[in-house]
């Protein structure tokens, strides 16, 4: 039981990160019907920007950790958004209205470009960040034949889950209640009509990329804090899993992406905890295949569901 609860907490933590990335896939798909394969690499770029910012702030002599974390978060969201915006502007917008596969191909190209760019400028080796947030609270303790086992909720996990929760709530409100969110949904449902009502469709699409990238930056920063090492290749696996999460939840659906992210995180952690660590990535991929075959519209992907 304690072991189960511990895995649940770990799974939700990891799932939060996947969910944040999945939102970017699902929003872009919702609005222009395209899988942005470079999105995982935007997440990777976000984690590098976070690392550089963090180290720079420490080098500047700022010692208050909460302040450093907060500034790092903002800076990496800002700069990663700029990357997301640029990718859309350079690689996707010129192809709008061209054949369907064209942006998909440039997306794969952009993914390779981003990976290589980071590899060349930052080096191919892993970059470490020593653990910054230590400690936690013990939720419960249990006795087994091998001794005591404790259910721990670390401060790190608390921060990750709480930040994700806050962002997702804020984000859902943004989409469902504000005029910007309404314009986004309008573009998703009928771009021509949206333009006929005065919506600047290109700008709305750009903003969608910017938002997706900002959330991916948060995920990148959390990944960095959680694992303590990053390299230019982390975007691939995390990207595929987040994409799986988006498909599982129903691509195009915002709540679906959040739910799918949490589920993929849980599945991965439970799989490693109860079966084998080696095959944890296989588990995610298998789910992708199974969902695509048996449930292509995903858990929440029915047409009636509010999409982004």
């Amino acid at each position, binding site marked *: 039981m304690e072991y189960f609860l511990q895995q649940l907490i770990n799974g939700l933590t990891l799932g939060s990160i996947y969910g944040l990335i999945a939102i970017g896939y699902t929003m872009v798909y919702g609005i222009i019907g395209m899988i942005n394969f470079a999105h995982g690499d935007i997440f990777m770029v976000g984690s590098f920007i976070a690392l550089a910012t963090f180290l720079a702030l420490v080098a500047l002599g700022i010692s208050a950790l909460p302040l450093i974390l907060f500034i790092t978060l903002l800076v990496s969201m800002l700069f990663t958004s700029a990357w997301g915006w640029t990718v859309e502007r350079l690689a996707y917008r010129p192809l709008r209205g061209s054949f369907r596969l064209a942006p998909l191909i440039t997306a794969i190209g952009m993914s390779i470009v981003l990976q290589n760019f980071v590899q060349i400028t930052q080096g191919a080796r892993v970059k470490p960040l020593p653990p910054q947030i230590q400690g936690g609270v013990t939720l419960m303790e249990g006795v087994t034949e091998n001794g005591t086992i404790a259910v721990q909720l670390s401060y790190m996990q608390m921060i990750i889950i709480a930040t994700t929760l806050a962002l997702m709530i804020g984000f859902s409100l943004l989409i469902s209640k504000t005029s910007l969110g309404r314009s986004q949904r309008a573009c998703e*449902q009928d771009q021509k009509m949206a333009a006929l009502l*005065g919506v*600047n469709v290109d700008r709305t699409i750009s903003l969608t990329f910017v938002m997706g990238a900002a959330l991916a930056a948060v995920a990148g920063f959390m990944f960095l804090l959680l694992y303590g090492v990053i390299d230019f290749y982390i975007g691939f696996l995390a990207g595929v899993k987040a994409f799986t999460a988006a498909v599982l939840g129903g691509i195009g659906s915002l709540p679906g992406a959040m739910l799918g992210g949490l589920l993929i995180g849980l599945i991965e952690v439970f799989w490693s905890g109860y079966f084998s660590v080696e095959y944890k990535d296989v588990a995610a991929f298998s789910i992708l295949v199974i969902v695509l075959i048996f449930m292509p519209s995903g858990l929440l992907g029915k*047409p*009636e569901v509010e999409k982004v």
Partner: protein
Amino acid sequence: MSTEQNLLTIRGVETYYGKIVALRGVDVDVKKGEIVTLIGANGAGKSTLMMTICGSPRARTGEIVFDGQDISRTPTHEIIRMGIAQSPEGRRIFPRMSVMENLQMGAQLVDDKHFDDDLKRVFDLFPRLKERANQRGGTLSGGEQQMLAIARALMSRPKLLLLDEPSLGLAPLIVKQIFEIIKELNSNEGLTVFLVEQNAFHALKLAHRGYVMVNGNITMSGTGAELLKRDEVRAAYLEGGAH
């Protein structure tokens, strides 16, 4: 004809879909405060002209002047900002948004302080919409969608209202209501209306002036009463008990 009091002046407009030509040099004038109607057979190019005015698709050649400015190269969303609203062919209600949200989309360029008054106005015109404010657009009946499309266009406080077949698929009683509403908006508020109609009899009775389009060309024009008397018009568009 002098173009000075014109709100909209269209000169020599040609529009293509790829290699297919849909408009072959169209000239139309709409003066401030007028109701002008455009009639013509299926596929004549009426909807294409409405959409070309809004820049989607763009005119390949020719000139479209709205309120003194050439808009033939202006992006759609900026044309709309200048004061044109369209209730397009097929209504194009956002299916997964509520009636209220569809109306908010119509009002998004207008200062929020007008919203409550404008909402009240369209609800007075179409009480049906008020009852259905929270229903999803996609689940409205065809007639309700048509009302919503017109109401949504009105929410943007346009100087020029473009209506593409507002009577399509509606019961005769509702058609009559909608035409009365158009007339009221025009005479009480001075709203300028450019109207495409299959229902030529009603449209020509309502409009100050009309144009007949055949195969991408304007072939006739005149006051509504004049056109109603023309044999060609009667033969082509009015036979078969439109009365």
